[in-house]
């Protein structure tokens, strides 16, 4: 169950993972993209951190909306609107439920709607979707989902310009989404 507190903890952990893997994410984005995913996500988690720091005793909805706005206004590129929409949808839904599974479901629906991609297109959806489908999120589910993008042929995003040559590379947005869910796993009292 998400709360205002554990969601902030989740974001702290996500921040650290992005910070640590910034260069790796940009490297993943080089052969099949434009090499900026690490920098984009770093700006995003910085924005989220700054936004959250300004809140006093916020409720869950405010926390989720602040996360969304931080991501939308700082990331840019393709991943900004997608991550931003995910948290915006979670914020909306959080009036009805704090259940993490239900929240991930609406987030995934938002990502699909915003970007028009679906499972198997070699995007972050290929991590969000297996995580959403499994009742219990495990590191195994996450890792398998990330790894599954390697053999896919990209049909959306920059990697799609490569056609066949996109095969054999992990999708950077899938990897950063993996960090998001690992951070969630590590956050006490979320699941």
């Amino acid at each position, binding site marked *: 169950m998400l709360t205002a507190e554990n969601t902030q903890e989740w974001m702290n952990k996500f921040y650290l993972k992005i910070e640590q893997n910034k260069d790796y994410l*940009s490297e993943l984005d*080089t052969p099949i993209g*434009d*090499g*900026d995913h690490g*920098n*984009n996500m770093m*700006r995003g988690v910085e924005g989220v951190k700054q936004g959250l720091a300004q809140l006093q005793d916020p409720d869950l909805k405010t926390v989720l909306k602040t996360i969304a706005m931080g991501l*939308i*206004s*700082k*990331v*840019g*590129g*393709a*991943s*900004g*609107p*997608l991550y*931003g929409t995910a948290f915006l949808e979670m914020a909306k839904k959080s009036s009805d439920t704090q259940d993490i599974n239900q929240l991930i479901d609406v987030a995934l629906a938002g990502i699909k709607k*915003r*970007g028009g991609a679906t499972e198997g297109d070699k995007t972050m959806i290929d991590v969000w979707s297996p995580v959403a489908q499994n009742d219990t999120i495990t590191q195994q589910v996450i890792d398998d989902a990330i790894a599954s993008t390697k053999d896919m042929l990209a*049909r*959306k*995003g*920059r990697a*799609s*310009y*490569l*056609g066949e*040559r996109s095969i054999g590379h992990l999708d950077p947005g899938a990897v950063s989404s993996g960090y998001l869910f690992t951070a969630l796993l590590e956050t006490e009292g979320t699941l």
Partner: protein
Amino acid sequence: MKKIINEPQNAVPEMVDGLVRAYPQYLERIPGSEAMVRSDKDSMIGKVGIVSGGGSGHEPSHAGFVGKGMLSAAVAGQVFTSPTPDQIYAAIKAADHGKGVFLVIKNYSGDVMNFDMAKDMAELDDIKIKSIIVNDDIAVEDSLYTQGRRGVAGTVLMHKLVGAAADQGASLDEIEKLAKAALPHISTIAVALSAATVPEVGKPGFTLADDEIEYGVGIHSEPGYRREKIKSSKKLVSELLAKINQEQHLDPKHQYAVLINGMGATPLMEQYIFSHDLLDQLETQNIKPVFMKVGNYMTSIEMAGISLTVFELADSTWLKYLNYPVETIAW
């Protein structure tokens, strides 16, 4: 990486600052943003606003085309990264003078989504918005099931068309019609000799050997369709023109505009030689362009290379729009 910069993460704000302060007669920075609006506000009154933008690194695009007769405002994202919706929204607000705002978007998932979100925000303010998604790069096969083609140098011709129409008082619907009609007639194809280095990344997006070139590369180091040994200018022209012919079936009965675009580090000397070979080869097809531009219009930081854009002027007003006088830094 050897660049005249300070901290890489400050490249965009410093660049925007250096630009607007050098050219206050054309540009004004929208406070708190990396978006710029025309200084000559009077020239926008009673007219549809035209907003474009995208990642930085394509200078003089897009701010270099802000001015009377062309763009009303431009948004500069991080290098090779779509600007965020709040910035685009700020540009839309500044460009709106009651007649609505037309967005020129290049076909990248990031740009499309961020402009879309900005459009949603602006529509909440009752600003009428229409847009065109430019996808002139014929290097990549088009398909309904993929991202489709990229928007590249042909975008500048689109700016010119819609900017001229707006300045002459065209309505938002008329501008949308014009843009939609012209779009399928604009085709671009590029060849790269070296890659660009994004300041925050610090190394080139790809590597070509000392004697290698790559056809079909995009303006963000996106890969092209073939790598080869360097060829003479004549042979490069043959290759690119063949691709254009496959797409457009150039015909002496039609009129054409041509844009030869330097990618950043390629000197004008080479662009003019390319122009010589292109005009020679078009002549063998009995084609003589009625409008031409040669220079750096849609660059990819310091990438070396050239793109060729051919625009079939299927409607006689389009040539008039291309020749319509503008007051900008870079047209």
